[in-house]
C-alpha cells in the first residue's frame, strides 16, 4: 500500500517525542517491571534451589537442614506463575493508560491538519493505517522496554549470585551473556533491517499487483489480457518468495547463538567449578554449590531469549512512530489555515455575503495554485452554481471558503476581512456539505445532534422532513436507526440529505454544497438537487457541480476552468 507521503524527510526529534509519549512512567508501570523481574528470578531460583536441594540431599544431612530448600522450591514454583500474572496485568494496564495520552496527542496533531493536510487521495486507508500504527506503539513498553529491563536485571543478579560461589564461573557466565546479548541485538537487528529494506517493497509490490489484477479482472478478461495480468501477480509472488527464502538463512542465527552460548556457559562453569571442589577454605566450593553454578546459566538463558524478539519489536515500533510523524507532523504546513484573527466586530448586513478578490490557494506540497479567483462575490440570499470539470479547482474554492485552506488576496465575509476573524467564527457563518458527508457509526439522532445539541426530537424530525427524509426515517424505526459504519446503510443521496439537515440545524447563513450528486445515481440526482435547494431556500447557497443542472434552480452560474474562476454572466432568476 502506498500511503500518501508528505515531501521531506521525517524529523528525528518528532519521532523521539512520539516514542516518548508512548512510554509510560507511572508507578503501575514500575510495578509491572518489578513483577517481571521477580517472575524471571523465580524461574532461575526454582532450578537453582532444586539443584541445591537434590545435591545437598544426596549428602544425607538431617532432614531439618533441607526444609528451607523444600519451602524455597515450592515458593519459587508458585512465584513464577503468580508474579507473571501480576506482571502482565500491571504492564498491560499501564500501557492502556498510556494509550489515552497517545491517542489524545495524535488527535491534537491531526485537528489542525484535517482534512487537506492529510493527503487528497486514500484518506481512508491512511487513517486506518494510522490507527494500527498507534496500536503498535503500545508494544514499546510491553515488548521492547519491559523484556530488555527484565533480561538485563535478571542476568545481572544471576551473575552476582554465581560470583558469590565462584568468581571464575561468574566471569564466564557474564562473557557468554554479553556475547549472546550482542549477537542477539546485532543479528536480530540486521535481519529485521534487511527485511524492511528488501521485503517491504516486495510485499507492497505484490499487494499492488493483487489489487490491480483483482480490481480490473473483468476488464482484463474482456480485453483478452487476463493471462498477462495474472503473470504480473505470479512474478511479484515469485520475487517475494525468493527474497523470503534468502532471508530464512538469517532467521535462526540469533536463537542458535543463544542456545550455543548457554551450552558453553554450562561447560565453562564445570571447568571453573570442578577444581574448586577439592579446595578447602574461602576459595572452595561445595557439591551443591557446583550444581547451582552449573545449572543457573540454563535458566538465565531461557529468560534472555526474549532479547532478539524485543529488538525486532523495537524496529516495528520505530517505523510506526516514523509513519505517524510523517502523516501527522507537529507543525501544520503553511497551506493549511489554522490561525485566525480575534476581531469581534459585528458583520455588515448590507455587504455581500462573500466577496473574493485576487484570491489564490495551493494544496500542501503543490508548487502552483490550484485555484485563482480574480473576483467573485455572492449577494445575501443568492444561489450561485459553480461549474467546471472534475479537478478544475472547485473543491479548492469550497475549502478556502470554510478556512480549511489558506489563501492569498482578499476574502470578505459580510464586509469583514476573514483574516481578522477567528477561524471558528468563519466556520459558524459558512457551512460545508462535503462531497462525501461523514456519517458516524451511531444512530441518526447522534449524527444530527452534534450540529445543535439543544435540538429536541421534534426539531430533528422537522428538519428531516424538510430535507425529504421524513418517510425514510419513519420506515427505519425513527431517530434511533443506525447509519452503519461510515454510513454503509445509507445511500449517497440520503447522506447528502443528512448533511444538509445538519447544516440547517446549525443554521449557517451561507451553505456550500460540494458536488452533492457525485455519488448519487444519475436518475435521482435531479430530484436531490431540487430538494436540497428548496430546503435551503432562505440561505445563501454556493452549489458546486460538474454536471448540468436544471434551469431555474440557481440565480447565477460561474465556471472554474483549469483553476481559474470566470464569471459567465447572470441568468434570470
Amino acid at each position, binding site marked *: 500500500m502506498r500511503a500518501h507521503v508528505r515531501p521531506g524527510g521525517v524529523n528525528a526529534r518528532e519521532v523521539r517525542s512520539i516514542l516518548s509519549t508512548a512510554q509510560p512512567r507511572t508507578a503501575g508501570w514500575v510495578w509491572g517491571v518489578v513483577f517481571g523481574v521477580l517472575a524471571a528470578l523465580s524461574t532461575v531460583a*526454582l532450578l537453582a534451589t532444586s*539443584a541445591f*536441594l*537434590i*545435591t545437598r*540431599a544426596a549428602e544425607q544431612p538431617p*532432614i531439618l537442614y*533441607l526444609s528451607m530448600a*523444600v519451602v524455597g522450591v*515450592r515458593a519459587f*514454583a*508458585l512465584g513464577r*506463575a*503468580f508474579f507473571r*500474572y501480576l506482571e502482565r*496485568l500491571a504492564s498491560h*494496564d499501564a500501557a*492502556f493508560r498510556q494509550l*489515552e495520552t497517545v491517542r*489524545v496527542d495524535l488527535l491534537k496533531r*491531526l*485537528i489542525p491538519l*484535517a482534512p487537506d493536510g492529510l493527503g487528497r*487521495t486514500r484518506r481512508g486507508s491512511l*487513517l486506518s493505517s494510522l490507527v494500527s500504527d498507534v496500536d503498535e506503539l503500545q508494544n514499546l513498553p510491553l515488548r521492547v522496554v519491559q523484556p530488555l529491563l527484565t533480561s538485563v536485571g535478571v542476568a545481572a543478579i544471576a551473575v552476582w549470585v554465581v560470583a558469590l560461589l565462584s568468581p571464575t564461573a561468574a566471569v564466564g557466565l557474564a562473557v557468554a551473556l554479553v556475547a549472546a546479548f550482542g549477537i542477539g541485538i546485532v543479528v536480530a537487528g540486521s535481519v529485521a533491517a534487511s527485511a524492511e529494506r528488501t521485503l517491504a517493497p516486495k510485499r507492497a509490490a505484490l499487494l*499492488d499487483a493483487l489489487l490491480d489484477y*483483482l*480490481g480490473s479482472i473483468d476488464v482484463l*478478461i*474482456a*480485453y*483478452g489480457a*487476463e493471462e498477462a495480468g495474472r503473470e504480473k501477480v505470479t512474478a511479484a509472488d515469485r520475487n517475494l518468495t525468493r527474497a523470503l527464502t534468502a532471508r*530464512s538463512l538469517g532467521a*535462526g*542465527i540469533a*536463537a*542458535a547463538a543463544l*542456545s*550455543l552460548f548457554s*551450552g*558453553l556457559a*554450562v*561447560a565453562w562453569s564445570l*571447568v571453573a567449578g570442578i*577444581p574448586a571442589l577439592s579446595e578447602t577454605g574461602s576459595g572452595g566450593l561445595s557439591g551443591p554449590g557446583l*550444581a547451582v553454578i*552449573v545449572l543457573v546459566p540454563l535458566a538465565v538463558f531461557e529468560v534472555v531469549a526474549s532479547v532478539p524478539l524485543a529488538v525486532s519489536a523495537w524496529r516495528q515500533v520505530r517505523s510506526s512512530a516514523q509513519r505517524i510523524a510523517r502523516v501527522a507532523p507537529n507543525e501544520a504546513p503553511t497551506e493549511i489555515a489554522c490561525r485566525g484573527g480575534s476581531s469581534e466586530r459585528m458583520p455588515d448586513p448590507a455587504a455581500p455575503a462573500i466577496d473574493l478578490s485576487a484570491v489564490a490557494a495551493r494544496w500542501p506540497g503543490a508548487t502552483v495554485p490550484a485555484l485563482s479567483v480574480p473576483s467573485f462575490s455572492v449577494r445575501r440570499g443568492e444561489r450561485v452554481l459553480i*461549474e467546471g*470539470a*472534475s*479537478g478544475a479547482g472547485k473543491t479548492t474554492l469550497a475549502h478556502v471558503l470554510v478556512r480549511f485552506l489558506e489563501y492569498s488576496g482578499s476574502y470578505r465575509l459580510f464586509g469583514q476581512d476573514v483574516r481578522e476573524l477567528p477561524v471558528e467564527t468563519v*466556520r459558524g457563518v459558512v457551512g460545508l456539505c462535503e462531497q462525501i*458527508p*461523514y456519517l458516524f457509526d451511531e444512530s441518526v439522532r447522534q449524527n444530527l445532534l452534534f*450540529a445543535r445539541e439543544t435540538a429536541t426530537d421534534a426539531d430533528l424530525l422537522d428538519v428531516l422532513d424538510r430535507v425529504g427524509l421524513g418517510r425514510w426515517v419513519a420506515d427505519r424505526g425513527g431517530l434511533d436507526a443506525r447509519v452503519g459504519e*461510515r454510513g454503509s446503510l445509507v445511500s449517497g443521496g440520503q447522506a447528502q440529505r443528512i448533511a444538509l439537515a445538519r447544516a440547517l440545524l446549525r443554521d449557517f447563513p451561507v451553505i456550500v454544497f460540494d458536488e452533492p450528486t457525485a455519488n448519487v445515481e*444519475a*436518475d435521482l440526482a435531479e430530484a436531490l438537487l431540487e430538494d436540497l435547494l428548496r430546503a435551503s431556500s432562505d440561505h445563501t447557497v454556493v452549489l458546486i457541480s460538474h*454536471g448540468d443542472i436544471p434551469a431555474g434552480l440557481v440565480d447565477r452560474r460561474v465556471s472554474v476552468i483549469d483553476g481559474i474562476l470566470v464569471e459567465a454572466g447572470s441568468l434570470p432568476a
Partner: protein
Amino acid sequence: MSARWFLVSGAAIGVATTACILAFAWLLTGCITGAIDGRPLGELLPQVGILVVVALVRAVLVYAQELVAARGAARVKSELRLGVLDAVRRLGPAWLAEQNSSRVATLLGRGMDALDDYFSKYLPQLILTVIVTPVIVLVILLNDPISAAFILVTLPLIPIFMILIGLATQSVQRRQWTILGDLSSGFVDTLGGLATLKIFGRERRQVDRMRSITRDYRTQTMRVLRVSFLSSFALELAASLSVALVAVSIGLRLVDGSMGLSVGLFVLLLAPEAFLPLRQVGTNFHAAAEGVAAAEDAFEVLDLAKERPADAAALAAQADAASGTLTLTAVSVDYGNGPVLAPVSGEFPIGTVTVIVGASGAGKSSLLGAILGFAPHTGTIALDGTTILSSAHERPWLAWTGQRPSLVVGSVADNVALGAEMDPERVRSALDLAAAPEISPELAVGVAGAGLSGGQAQRVGIARAIYRSLDRGCSVVLLDEPSSALDTRTESALLDGLRVLADSGIAVVVVSHRRAVIERADAVLTVEPRVLAGAP
C-alpha cells in the same frame, strides 16, 4: 507438497533434538556427580568436551528448525496464494464483485502472513510435543517411576485446564469483545469524521470524548485480559509446580538413601523439558488460531471453485465471429433467485448509437453482465444469428468499458492499448475520439487510477474500448455511464466522438441517464425491473 516436506524435516529435527536433550542431561549429570565423587577435572575433561559438541549440535538444530520453518512458510504461502488466484479466475468477476476485491487482496497479501507464526512458532512446537515429550517421559519412567507418575498426572491437566477456563470464560469474552469493537471503532470514527467535526466547530470537544472512550476501552480490555491471562497462569503453574513436586520428592528419597544422586539429577534436568514444548504450544495458540483462520478463508475459496467445472471445453467449442449484428431475445439475468429484470429484446444495428435507460436498480448493469458473459442469463444473445455462450471469456466482437474504469498500473498508453499491440498513432486517435485530447499517453497511472481525476480515468477507459474496436474490428462498443463524471462541454465532445465511431461501421451501445446522451441517440432501449408478485 511443501506441507509434507515441512512435516518430515520437522520430525527429523524433532528426533535429533530429543537425542540432544537426553545426551546433554546425561553428560551434565555425569560431570557433576563425577566431580562430587572426587574425580579431578582432567579425568572429566573429555565428557565436558562432548558436552560442548552436543551444545553445538543443538544450536545447529535450532538454526535448522527456524530455517525450515521460514522456507516452509514462504513456499506454502506462495502455493496457497497462486491456487486461490486460479480459483478466483475460475469463479469469475461476478463472484468477485460480491466479495469486495480489496478484501480478497488482503487475504492473499497480508492475510497469508498470518501463516508465518503458525509455521515458525506453533507447528514446530506441536511436532516437538508429539516427539520429545513422550520419549522424555518414557526415559524418566525407566529411571524413576514415581517422578514419571507426577508428570503423567500433571501433563494432561494443562490442556484440560486451558479448555475448561476457555469454556468458562467464552461467553464473558464474546460479550466483552463486542463492546471492545465498538470502543475501538470510536477512535477510527473520530479521526475519519474530523473534517465534519471541524465544520461544526466540535473538534476541541472530541479530545475529551476521546479521553473517555479510551478510558472505557482500557477498563473493558483489562476485564477481558484478567480472564484471558488466567489460562496462561494455569499453564505456568501446572508446569512449574510439577517440577517442584518432582524435585522435592527426589530430594526426600535421596535423604533416606533410596535413590542415587545421578538418577535424581538426571530426572530433575529432564522434567522441565517434558513441559517446554507443550508450554510453547499454549503460548503460541493465539498466533496459530489466526493462521488457521487465514488458511480457512483461502480453502473456502478453493472449495467453491472446485464445485465449478473449468469452462475450458466450452471455450474451445466457442469460435465467436469478430463482427456482426448483436441481437437480444427475451434476455433476463438469473443469479439463482429468479430473474432480476423483465425480459429484454432488441437489436443493435451497425452504424447506430443506442442508449439503454432504466431507473437505478432496474438491472442495466446485470444486462451488460449477461452480454459480457459475467452474469448467468436466460433468453438468447446472438451475433448474426449465432448464439453466444454464457461464460466469462474474451468476446472478439465486443469492446466494453464499465462504470468503474478499472485502469491497470502503467502509462495511459498501456491502458488504452490493453491486450493489443501498441500503436502510438491509434492511441492518440482513440484518446481524441474519447474527448481526451489533453491527456498525454505517457502519463503514469498508479494503483486504482491514481494520478488521474475521475473524469480523466473515465475517458481513458472509453479510449481503451475505442482502441480495441479499431484494432480488432469489433462490431459492438458497449459503454456503461460513460459521461457520469464529465461536465457538459466534455460530454458533448464525447458524443461527437461516439457518432464518428458509429459512422465508421460500429454499433455503439451506451447505458446512460444523461439528457444530452438520450437526445442524441438513434434508439432507446428501456430496462425495467422484474416486478415480483406480492413483493412490498
